[in-house]
Every structure is written in C-alpha cells, then in structure tokens.
C-alpha cells in the first residue's frame, strides 16, 4: 500500500545533499551527452524528477545538466518518455532564471508542445505571449502535411486563458475560421489502420468505413465528439479538440469586441438585411470568421443535442452524452448572448430539451445550464425560465439531496445567478426548505457556499421560519437519513451509516402526529408556519450520533452567524423582537446532538443583545415573555449563556429613557423575578442534572437588580439587603465547594461595589443608567466633563468611607454598556475602563462578543485612581 513506501522515498529524496546531487547530475549529464537513451537514463531522470519535486525548496542543478536536459527535450532522436521526463524536471524547477529554452528549438509539433509546457510554467506573461505567437505561426503555416496540430491546439487554448490579449485580431479571426472548419467538416470516414507511421497518420488509400453514432448506427450527419469508430483521423482529433476549447474561445473572442468587427464585416458581405433564418447554410461560407465560427458552433450543438438522445451502447459514452449535453447548452447560451439573432433558432431545441429532461432523473444536472440559458435570455424566455426554476427549486433538492456533485453545482448555480433570477428570486427564497436539504446532507462542502448565499435568501417574510429551520438543521439531516432508509432498499453501498440502526424510528413514524411533523420538516417550500418539533426530536434521537448529523450540527453556528449578520441589516423593530423571542423559545428545544446546544447557545446569546439594540423597546413590550423566561426553571440555564444575555438586556433597556411606557410597577415585577432567581442560583448545589451556575450569572443578576433599583429608588433598601446577603453568602465557608475562590472573590467585590454605589442614589442612577450622550468619547477623555468628575467623586467618597474595601475601579456608565464600538478608548491600554454593569469577573473569560454585545473589558481608569 502506498503508505510507508512513499513516505520513505520522499524522505530519501529530500535528504539528498547538494554534493550528492552534483554527482548525480554529472552522471545524468554524461548519459545525455552520450545520447544514451537506455533504461539507465530513464531511471536516472525519474529519480532526478523525484529529487526536484519532493521538496518545496528550490534545488540547484548543475548548469551543464540543465542545458543538456533542454537539448534532449529538443533532440529528434530522444524517445518520448525521456523527453517527457526532461520537460517535467524543467517544469518542476520553474520559475527558473537560467532557462535558454525557446520554441524555435523544437523539431516537431509534439516537441513544441513540450517546450511550451515548460515555458508556460514560468509564469511570465511576456513568455506566454511569445509561446502563443510561435504556436500560432505553426498553425497558420497551413502546410498540408504539418504533423499533428493536435499537439498545438491545447497550447493555444492555454495561452488564450493565461493572456487573453496574446493573439491579435487577425490571428483570432483566422483561427476562428479554422475552428469552424474543424468543427463542421471533419471526415466522416473512420481512420485507417496504421501502417508503418504513427497511429494517427492516416493514409487515404483504404477507407475502413463510415463513423457510427453512439448507438451503433451509421452516422447520419457530420462528425462530432459523439461519433465513434475503430480509429480516428487527424481532422477528427482536431474536431474533438476544437469542440473541447470552443466555449472558452468564444467567450474570449466575443466580449472584447462585442459585435463591432462583425457588424463591419457583415455589412460588407450581406448588406444590412440580416435575416434570422436565412443566415443558415446558403451564404454561410461568406460569413466573417467570428460569425462563421458561431454558425458552425450552433450547428454542432444542435447535432450534439440530437445525438445525446440516442441510446449509447457503451456505459462510458452515456456519461459523455450528458457532459456533451451540458456543454452544448452552455455554448448555445454563449452564442445567443453574443448574437441574439441565434435565439430564435436555439429556443425551440432548448424547449424540447427541457421537456425531455424534466422527466429524466439521470440528466438532472443538465437542467442547471438549461435554466441558466433561459435566465440569460430574459423576456424571450421568461415563461421557460419560470417553469424550469419552479421545477428546479421545488423538486430537485427533495429528490436528489444525496448527490454531492449536484448539490455543489446547484448551490453554485443559485449563487452565480442571484442577479438574474428577477421574479424567480422570490421563488428561490420561498424554496429555502428545499435548498437546506442539500446543506443538511453535505454540510462540509456547502457551508461556505450558504454563508455567501444566505444574505440573498433571507427576507423579512421568511426570516422567522428560516431561523427555525437553521436551528433544526441537524434534525433535518436525521430526517433525510430516515427518509432514505425508508425509500431505498438496502443497496450495496447505502448512503447512510449502516452502523447506526434506527428500527424504532421507522416504527414510530407510523404515528400520524409524528408523520405530520416529519412531513413538515421535509417540506419543499416555506409554509409560513412552524411547529414544535420536540416530539420529532425525541423520535429521531437514535440518529443523533450519526457522523453526518454531528457534522451538520457543527456547521450550524457559522450559518447562524451569517443569518444574523444578514438579518440585522434590514430587520425592523417588530422582526427584531420576534426573532429575539424566538431565540428564547428555541434555546431549550434543540435536537440533542453532542455539543450542539452549548455551541448554539453561544451564538444565540451573543445575538440577543444585538437584536435588543435594534429595538430597545422590546424589553418593555415583551416584558411578559422575558419574565417567563427568567422565571422558568432548569433548561435555559444549563450553560448560563442565554440567561446572562437576557438579564443583561433587562438591566440595560428596562428604563424610561428607552421606552416611555416603562412603569415602576414593571420594574418591580422584574426585580421580584430576578431576586427570586438570584437566590435560587446562588444557593443551588451543583448536581448531575443542573451544572454549577457560572459566577457571571450571579454578578450580572446583582448588577441588574442594582440598575433597576437606581431607576425605581423604592427598591434600594431591598436591593441593598439582597446584595449584602449575597456578600455574606460568598464569604461563608459553605459556599466554598460550590464556587471557586476567585469566583467568590469576584462576587463579593461586585456586591460591595454595588452596595456602595447605591448609598448615593443619584450617583447610582447616573452611573448605572447613563444617558445616551455618555456614549460619546468626549465623556471619557475630558476630565472636566460630568462623568469623570462624578466618578472621581464617587471613588474618593467610597475610599474614604470604607478603606478596607477593594478599589472601586469602574466607570459604570461607560458607553461600552451600550455599544463597545462607540468608544475606542474603552479598551485595555487605551485609557481603560471597567464596565461595572457587565459581569466580567476576574479570570473568567468573556461570555459574549459581537456587535452590540457587552464585551466587559477589565482594566482600570488610571486617571480616576490617580485623582
């Protein structure tokens, strides 16, 4: 097996030292000098190639050896294998400064091809043009017996792709003319059995019969890549190459001079009357080259479409038929874009093709270029575009989600044609449940594609449903897996993981309610409604350990981030509040895949503050739901991420300054709920079901109740009592085992800070409920503005009053509470601050990040302490 062997050889090759290499080169030089083309040279050159290729660092070869390699490459006597090795060594060394090779040295078109491969590998644009000129000259020479232009045509194609300006217009025209000839007028007789010469040198003395179609019948029309025979002639080989490079050539030739040169030429030839239909065969030999090529290309593609409908005798040929179908449609698309008059000839074929292919699951991949064609030709093909898009978006993903290649092409297609969809964009958007099937099944290859696609897919109408489905993506994977198990008999190579058995799932699906949910999850189009899938999650649980489901679950956080990045750009208040509530609702109803809940909570908790920031009134408007969330036991608290975000948002936005409707009564209700929660989490003992509550939750709860008290000052006595209890609790030895020493210290510090702050209610209000102006950097830079003064005052007062206390080093009203990006000074080293209202404690890492999220940076206001 190629495991240990290559490893050893590669190491040996890398370890060859300069001296050893020098001796080896000398040996090779001697062999090449002596024109010894035997097995020794073959072996030596193979080794030399490995030595050069095995390392990413350049190898210095003896200059004599390099020269001799180039000589051998162009020697008429050196056998092909050795020349290939010489070329490979030279190419591996590229880019190389001391190459004396030039196209003029080549003795034959085959050698010219090899020389070109070395020169093109140098990466020098000027070199590319020189090679292009040299090759095109040989092609233009038009000597009837120039051997095998087939070695050169691919070079032209490569040069044109590397340097689109390599060929002047005259040369492009000449080559276009010849490409048209090769496409349309290749011999329809098979090549003759080779005599003494090369395999493909076809003496015209004996004709072994006509070429056949792929189904074995005698060819009815001109030769194409789908025509077969025992042997092929040179012009048939050129035909194959001409078609292979056709699309790229048309694209490169077309857009540079969009119709300009053609229209001049055409007016000369045909006057101003350009009849769409009569442009066909009669006058076609008079057409200017570019147009001539397009004409021949159209005929060729039409013939290919006809040939691709035949029943191939060989399996490999039926694969080629599909590839040809795709290429023919793509070429027709290019032709019609370059010259819309072709449209009326191409449309009927493509309509017929669409009808034929929509019913043929084997040709499903050819539907994508057909759809592309219809989309490109707007009004003329609008009806067809709608029909094919409808078919594509709704049926194909549901039926073919398990084909990785189709999935990739399909998503690429959507991504590339977003601007062209027009009215079909809405169709695409509402078909997201279908598209997500591809994603759910092949998440590793498609995640980045969907990250790019999501901004176009999501709109206000589908955002809520899409978020639900994104969160349910791993269960969709499981459901698709189950669907495959249900529908396919056990084939030799099933697409699912056979080691995971799910007999219970199949059984349970008989239940009508489960069946309904199953169908809902597998819907093809957005339905506007969403259902709680808890029952289905339980049912699919045995599949949660499938690698595919786990892979999908790992992709979801990335997708969620992309989703929110897109949504927050356009969401209005109503949508933001709807999504925020959805986060709360879904945080405890996720499919149970290992690590999934924690990952998702991390993302959701960072998005919740961002959504609140978009619509701060939400906290007042949706007080009921938020109260329910903080009062509900268990679930959402498992990691504390969500709870922390929600409690922070309450402290931040439950204030008359954000919404006039906020009442003291509402503040009281929240206070009571949070008070109860604080006691609960502070006193709870860790158990297997309920993990230890992170100290961040406790500190953020304390800060939030203090913020509420600063707004509704009747609460101050109760909050003070609560805080001192917390301090006592943190200092009591019983708390030790529950929280670590650092954590307890942090809780104690926070409680003390807040207690002291609340002793001066007006200052507390100023610090804990800052006005919006405080976000301006001026408030933090300028000593004489109100905030620094106020803080300095508080600091001094507190230090005097309680000398034993830890330093109160925060700027509670810093803008970072609202927007960390607003105040660049609030960074470590940039003057620094400590956001008292955010529960960043001691060594505990930041809980959240992202836009609008409280980042909690702990540093000190040096200016304040120094005061």
């Amino acid at each position: 097996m190629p495991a240990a062997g290559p490893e050893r050889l590669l190491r040996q090759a890398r370890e060859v030292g300069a001296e050893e290499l020098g001796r080896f080169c000398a040996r090779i030089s001697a062999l090449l000098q002596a024109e010894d083309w035997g097995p020794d040279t073959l072996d030596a050159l193979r080794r030399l190639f490995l030595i050069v290729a095995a390392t990413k660092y350049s190898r210095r070869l003896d200059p004599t050896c390099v020269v001799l390699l180039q000589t051998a490459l162009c020697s008429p006597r050196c056998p092909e294998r050795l020349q290939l090795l010489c070329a490979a060594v030279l190419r591996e060394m590229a880019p190389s400064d001391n190459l004396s090779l030039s196209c003029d040295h080549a003795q034959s078109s085959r050698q010219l091809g090899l020389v070109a491969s070395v020169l093109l590998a140098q990466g020098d644009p000027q070199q590319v043009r020189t090679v292009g000129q040299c090759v095109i000259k040989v092609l233009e020479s038009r000597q009837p017996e120039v051997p095998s232009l087939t070695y050169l045509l691919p070079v032209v194609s490569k040069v044109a792709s590397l340097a689109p300006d390599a060929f002047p217009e005259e040369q492009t025209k000449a080559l276009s003319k010849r490409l048209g000839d090769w496409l349309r007028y290749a011999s329809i007789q098979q090549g003759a059995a080779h005599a003494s010469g090369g395999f493909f040198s076809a003496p015209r003395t004996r004709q072994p019969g006509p070429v056949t179609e792929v189904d074995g019948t005698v060819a009815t029309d001109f030769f194409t890549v789908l025509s077969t025979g025992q042997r092929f002639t040179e012009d048939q080989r050129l035909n194959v190459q001409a078609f292979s490079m056709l699309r790229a050539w048309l694209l490169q030739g077309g857009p540079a001079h969009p119709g300009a040169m053609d229209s001049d030429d055409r007016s000369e030839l045909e006057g101003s009357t350009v009849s769409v239909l009569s442009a066909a065969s009669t006058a076609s030999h008079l057409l200017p080259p570019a147009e001539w090529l397009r004409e021949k290309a159209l005929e060729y593609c039409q013939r290919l479409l006809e040939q691709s409908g035949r029943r191939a005798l060989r399996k490999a040929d039926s694969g080629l038929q599909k590839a040809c179908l795709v290429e023919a449609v793509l070429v027709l698309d290019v032709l019609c874009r370059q010259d819309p008059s072709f449209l009326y000839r191409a449309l009927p074929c493509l309509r017929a093709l669409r009808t034929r292919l929509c019913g043929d699951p084997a040709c499903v991949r050819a539907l994508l270029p057909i759809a592309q064609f219809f989309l490109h030709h707007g009004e003329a093909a609008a009806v067809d575009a709608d029909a094919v898009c409808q078919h594509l978006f709704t049926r194909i993903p549901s039926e073919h989600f398990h084909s990785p290649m189709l999935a990739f092409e399909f998503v690429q297609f959507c991504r590339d044609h977003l601007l062209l969809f027009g009215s079909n964009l809405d169709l695409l958007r509402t078909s997201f449940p279908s598209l997500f099937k591809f994603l759910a099944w092949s998440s590793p290859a498609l995640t980045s594609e969907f990250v790019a696609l999501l901004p176009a897919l999501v709109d206000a109408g589908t955002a809520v449903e899409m978020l639900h489905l994104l969160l349910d993506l791993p269960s969709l994977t499981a459901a698709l897996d189950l669907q495959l198990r249900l529908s396919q008999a056990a084939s030799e190579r099933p697409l699912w993981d056979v080691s995971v058995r799910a007999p219970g799932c199949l059984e349970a699906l008989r239940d009508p309610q489960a069946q309904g949910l199953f169908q809902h999850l597998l819907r093809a189009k957005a339905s506007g409604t969403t259902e709680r899938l808890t029952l289905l999650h339980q049912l699919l649980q045995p599949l949660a350990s499938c690698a595919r489901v786990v892979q999908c679950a790992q992709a979801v956080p990335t997708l969620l981030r992309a989703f929110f990045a897109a949504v927050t750009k356009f969401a209005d208040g109503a949508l933001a509040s709807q999504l925020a509530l959805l986060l709360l609702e879904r945080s405890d109803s996720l499919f149970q895949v290992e690590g999934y809940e924690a990952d998702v909570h991390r993302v959701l908790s960072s998005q919740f503050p961002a959504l609140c920031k978009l619509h701060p009134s939400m906290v007042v408007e949706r007080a009921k739901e938020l109260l329910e969330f903080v009062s509900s036991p268990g679930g959402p608290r498992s990691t504390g991420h969500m709870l922390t975000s929600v409690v922070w948002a309450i402290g931040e936005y439950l204030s008359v300054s954000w919404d006039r409707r906020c009442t003291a009564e509402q503040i009281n209700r929240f206070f009571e709920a949070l008070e109860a929660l604080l006691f609960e989490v502070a006193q709870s003992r860790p158990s297997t079901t309920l993990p230890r509550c992170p100290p961040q939750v406790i500190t953020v709860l304390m800060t939030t109740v203090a913020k509420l008290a600063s707004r509704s000052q009747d609460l101050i006595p109760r909050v003070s009592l609560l805080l001192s209890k917390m301090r006592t609790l943190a200092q009591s030895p019983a708390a030790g085992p529950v929280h670590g020493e650092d954590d307890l210290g942090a809780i104690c510090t926070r409680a003390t800070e807040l207690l002291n702050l609340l002793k001066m209610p007006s200052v507390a209000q100023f610090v804990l409920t800052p006005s919006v102006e405080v976000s301006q950097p001026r408030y933090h830079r300028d000593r004489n503005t109100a905030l620094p003064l106020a803080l300095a005052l508080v600091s001094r007062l507190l230090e005097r009053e309680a000398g034993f206390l830890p330093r109160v080093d925060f700027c509670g009203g810093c803008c970072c509470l609202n927007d960390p990006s607003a105040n660049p000074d609030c960074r470590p080293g940039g003057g620094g601050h400590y956001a008292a209202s955010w529960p960043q404690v001691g060594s505990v890492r930041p809980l959240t990040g992202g836009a609008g999220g409280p980042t909690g940076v702990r540093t000190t206001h040096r200016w304040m302490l120094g005061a």
Partner: protein
Amino acid sequence: MVHAFLIHTLRAAKAEEGLCRVLYSCFFGAENSPNDSQPHSAERDRLLRKEQILAVARQVESMYQLQQQACGRHAVDLQPQSSDDPVALHEAPCGAFRLAPGDPFQEPRTVMWLGVLSIGFALVLDTHENLLLAESTLRLLARLLLDHLRLLVPGANLLLRADYIEGILTRFLPHGQLLFLNDQFVQGLEKEFSAAWSH
C-alpha cells in the same frame, strides 16, 4: 481549463499517523501575479506554488474524511481485501468544493476530487468549468494511472514513474484542456500510449 492536477495520499481518519503527502503535482501554466509590483524571487514563487498544492491536498483529504465518516465507512473498510481486487472506480467517493479568491489561489477555483483507497486525485479548475466532463476526466485519469502504474500492487510506486503520469496527462489532459473523449477514442489513445511505453 484545468490549472493543476495532483495526486496525494489520503488517510482514512485524522488520527491516523503520518501527514498528507503530495505524490505528484503539475501546474498547467502558472498563475501570474500582475498586481504585485514586488519583484519575486523565483524561489519564493516556487515555494508558493508548492504550498498552494499542499493546501488543496489537505482540504481534499479532510473533505474525503468527512464524507467517509458521514457514510459510515471507516478505516477498516478502506483497505483492499487483496491486491487482486479490482477497484470499483465508479463507486469511488468524489466531490467538489470551491476555493475562495486568495485562498490559496488569486482567482476563485473549483476543486474536483476523487478518492481511491488511500490515494487522492484532484483537479483545480476554473469556476465555470463543465463539472460532468471534469468528473469523467478525473475518473478516466485515475483509472489509467491505476491500470498502468498498478498502483494498488504493493511495492509499485508512482513516485518513480513520473514518465507514465506525464505520458497519460499529455494525451488525456493536454495542457490542462479537458477533452470530450468517447470510449473508442479513449481506447485509441490508450493503445497509442501503451505502444509508446512498451519499448
């Protein structure tokens, strides 16, 4: 148009020992860097190309591993039962993914890969290449290489058979041009290749 072709080792799982090794690679014409005014040393350019190839190989390997895991195929299944077993190439896992511009190539590219036992074959393509053709070409190249190099026979080694790889590539993927070759055409070219290599 194909920009590069590579053959590399594939490990069934990340945990397996060793590294992903590129066994053969070939650029069909190099990527220019016209926007970069800094004069490059030839050495740096070459290093960059090698790193690009390695980046593709690693990504292919991890795509392969993920796909195999997802289908529930584990390391044990991947070893051939015996060296005489014909490899079912049409069943060999394959896939495609996109490389974003700048990572690792300047232009966006599509990678088409095929995993046969412990060897990976990959084409680096233009983004709008005909993927059906690319896939069949990749399978054809893999089949030819496996047949002619007898890669699955223990001891056979493609590292010291570069002339075979070059000979196959010049005929079936000349200068990176994907060709529409029907079955009989392939047979003709293959016979021609065998004839040239037999003596």
